[in-house]
């Protein structure tokens, strides 16, 4: 593909995007618009388009990044629209950017704001200075005499004013300054102001285009039936019954070893294609996992807590000596199950393979990875794969795996037409890249007064990087397995070790990743430590966090918010949990309140206090904390992907229960801006919520539940 053709295609793609994302509010800046940077375009009529490479999966990032740009540009917010873009200019500055990795366009790790605040603010400031220079040239004055606001440059002294749109012709010819000054925080007018989402109007009109809404002329529809057991593949496919279904056009077996295998049925309607997939009779190859079940997974992890090799992750002090001198030793084993992401938009992609290239329409967190994976299975160059971005109907880490795009590309190549492959809900739940099942053994050495002297942790389970990004496993440690362990508190003698196991299925990044299980375990254990010290759980944590005022502040705030008077309440109990993350530059404290009803527990209220530094959009940060908290609570109450005969068990939301309006507790959120950094927001509500739930369950029932979810103990 020549450069000019690629540019043309890219241009077409960008144009179709603007229309495609919201068909009724198409925005175009036209040929006269000036591109100040990859991120900013201003048209003579004053229309401003911000181009961002981050995926909008509900986290409000298109609004948040636009706020960062608009702040420094001093843009008229009413004239701002946002377009999704792909290309090397939109690579993530932090995630997967360290050698030997080469960086990629990626939305994940809750790092969009942290990573893009510096380049976007700089881009906004540079464009603002160029516009000021253009006005200064026209007025024959120094740029320093001018000020900007709402897309207008003005000269206060001379009473002059020019709109940005009127300056773009001159601005086009001026160089961008290398180090335009950023506005001081005291001059911010946009950052920190609760701002309505830019995508809400389209979303409530049904006009927002998700990957599943792609429409390509001549498009066929595909339904997939994966091999039931990970590692299996189709040995023989009896497709006679499927082919007799009207509209069924092709039956396409596929096998991508180590990734996925199965059969796609292509038809003139998805409904027919799914009937075809259901009608297939397939003989699947045997695997070593064919007798695997939930109990075997639990037993395997429990055994690895006690025996076999483990790699030391971090050791401080001399835990062994501390244990030798302990007055008392506490020990607890915890287990968390496999979990599905259960995005409400099932996995899907639309592919059109033709002339040695492939177009992909997909809601994705990792467009470059989709390109690489599709190129790999088609045997073409990644540059020959074009990704057309769309809104994501939920992501939570699932939509960066490319398996749905691979299936669509193989189906399109076989059918010789564009094909949209949608996974049924059962396929989506059973062939997820699951949050892995993990177990943790924690031991604490206590002094005679109950004081914590030493804390050792051994975590058993598979490594997500090991399976998906082995190059990131350093010195035998997969950080995704140990994240959240030994992290929140400074203990004089502490150690963390990982006992690696083989995964039983595809595993992947699930909102909160390693912290999603590890923090649930550590914070449940801290409550046991508090009990051993006869201390209130919040007071006990404040003691552990002596000398860490930002951490203490969120605990004090959450205590004040809920009127904390201990764990017991008349009809149930309250539990607290705390987490601070280096990766996310954040501290979060949560209190969950439960009530007893018919022998079960019901979460009735949640309070969260967070210090993530500067909050760009408080309205969306609040929504993210609420959503992630409920995401974690759903998992804590009911979340479990069981296995039977090697096959994941869930079939739909009927047996993979998540919170609904009637049982979702209100979540009250408060932010403390204890620092100047732009910390993370998107996942931080998830990891501690199940721990607060377990601790509330103890307060309400006197039972220490050490196996998630609560439903396993008959309490939810």
């Amino acid at each position: 593909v020549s450069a000019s053709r690629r540019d043309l295609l890219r241009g077409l793609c960008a144009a179709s995007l603007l229309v495609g994302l919201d068909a009724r509010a198409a925005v175009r800046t036209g040929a006269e618009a000036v591109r100040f940077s990859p991120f900013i375009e201003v048209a003579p009529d004053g229309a401003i388009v911000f181009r961002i490479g981050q995926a909008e999966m509900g986290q409000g990032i298109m609004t948040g990044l636009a706020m960062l740009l608009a702040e420094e540009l001093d843009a008229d917010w009413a004239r701002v629209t946002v377009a999704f873009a792909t290309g090397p200019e939109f690579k993530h500055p932090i995630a997967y950017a360290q050698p030997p990795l080469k960086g990629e366009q990626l939305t994940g790790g809750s790092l969009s704001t942290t990573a893009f605040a510096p380049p976007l603010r700089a881009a906004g400031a540079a464009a603002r200075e160029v516009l000021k220079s253009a006005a200064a040239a026209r007025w024959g004055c120094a740029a320093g005499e001018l000020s900007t606001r709402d897309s207008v440059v003005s000269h206060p002294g001379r009473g002059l004013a020019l709109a940005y749109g009127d300056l773009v012709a001159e601005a086009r010819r001026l160089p961008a300054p290398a180090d335009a000054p950023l506005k001081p925080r005291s001059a911010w007018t946009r950052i920190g102001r609760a701002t309505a989402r830019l995508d809400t109007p389209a979303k409530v009109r049904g006009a927002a285009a998700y990957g599943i809404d792609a429409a390509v002329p001549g498009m066929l529809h595909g339904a997939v039936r994966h091999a039931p057991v990970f590692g299996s593949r189709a040995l023989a496919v009896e497709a006679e019954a499927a082919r007799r279904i009207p509209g069924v056009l092709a039956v396409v077996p596929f096998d991508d070893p180590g990734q996925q295998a199965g059969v796609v049925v292509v038809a003139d309607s998805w409904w027919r294609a799914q009937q075809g997939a259901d009608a297939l009779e397939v003989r699947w190859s045997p695997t070593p996992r064919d007798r695997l079940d939930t109990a075997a997974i639990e037993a395997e992890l429990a055994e690895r807590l006690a025996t076999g090799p483990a790699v030391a992750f971090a050791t401080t002090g001399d835990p062994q000596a501390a244990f030798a001198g302990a007055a008392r030793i506490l020990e607890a084993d915890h287990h968390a199950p496999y979990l599905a992401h259960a995005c409400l938009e099932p996995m899907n992609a639309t592919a059109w393979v033709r002339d040695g290239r492939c177009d992909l329409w997909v809601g994705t967190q990792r467009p470059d990875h989709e390109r690489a994976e599709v190129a790999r299975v088609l045997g073409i160059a990644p540059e020959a794969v074009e990704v057309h971005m769309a809104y994501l109907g939920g992501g939570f880490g699932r939509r960066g795996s490319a398996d749905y795009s691979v299936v669509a590309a193989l189906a399109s190549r076989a059918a010789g037409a564009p094909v949209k492959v949608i996974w049924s809900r059962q396929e989506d739940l059973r062939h997820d890249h699951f949050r892995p099942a993990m177990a943790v053994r924690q031991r604490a050495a206590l002094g005679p007064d109950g004081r914590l002297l030493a804390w050792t942790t051994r975590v058993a389970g598979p490594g997500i990087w090991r399976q998906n990004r082995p190059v990131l496993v350093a010195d035998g440690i997969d950080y995704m397995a140990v994240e959240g362990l030994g992290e929140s508190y400074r203990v004089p003698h502490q150690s963390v070790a990982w006992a690696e196991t083989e995964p039983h299925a595809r595993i992947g990044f699930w909102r909160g990743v390693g912290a999603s299980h590890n923090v649930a375990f550590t914070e449940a254990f801290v409550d046991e430590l508090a009990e051993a010290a006869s201390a209130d759980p919040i007071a006990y944590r404040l003691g552990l966090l002596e000398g860490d005022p930002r951490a203490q502040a969120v605990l004090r705030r959450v205590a004040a918010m809920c009127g904390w008077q201990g764990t017991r309440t008349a009809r149930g109990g309250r539990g607290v949990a705390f987490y601070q993350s280096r990766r996310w530059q954040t501290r979060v404290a949560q209190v969950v309140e439960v009530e007893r009803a018919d022998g079960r527990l019901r979460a009735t209220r949640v309070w969260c206090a967070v210090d993530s530094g500067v909050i760009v959009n408080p309205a969306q940060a609040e929504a993210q904390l609420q959503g992630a908290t409920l995401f974690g609570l759903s998992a804590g109450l009911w979340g479990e992907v069981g296995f039977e005969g090697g096959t994941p068990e869930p079939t739909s939301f009927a047996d993979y229960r998540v919170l609904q309006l009637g049982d979702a507790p209100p979540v009250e959120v408060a932010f403390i801006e204890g620092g100047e950094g732009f910390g993370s927001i998107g996942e931080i509500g998830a990891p501690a919520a199940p721990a607060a739930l377990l601790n509330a369950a103890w307060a309400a029932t006197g039972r220490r539940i050490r196996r998630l979810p609560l439903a396993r103990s008959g309490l939810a």
Partner: protein
Amino acid sequence: MTTSLRVNGREVPVEAPGDKPLLWVLREDLGLTGTKFGCGVGVCRACTVLVDGEAVLACVAPLSAVAGAAVTTIEGLGAGGVPDPVQQAWIEADVPQCGYCQPGMILAAKALLARDPAPTTEALVEGLPNICRCGTYDRIRAALRSLTAKAARS
């Protein structure tokens, strides 16, 4: 075979088998993609549409069952660029995150309000088992409260 439907106020002939679910008729035959596929078995309710004013799960409603009926999808709410009051309440509470469940959520709320113009917020909550995986429930409750407050004033 041809089935006649009235969709968003317009008569549309549909050339599709009678047992094809309304969801796929709307999405594939009529290009109305605002109605979402979430589970296909009538559990998540992302596919909720109005049929003669009643909430119907389009993923399990065969085309033949709605022949001749008036179907309202999310694209048919509101008039002349002015959002329906339920949509307006959703905009004011800035409810959506990923937004995928919201068309079904909005239409389900619309049906509840049509049946009982002055319901309690509790009744609306009870009547909305639609699944939102992002957890926008706090803001849905806020939108419902504003709708019930308006209904009580009028």
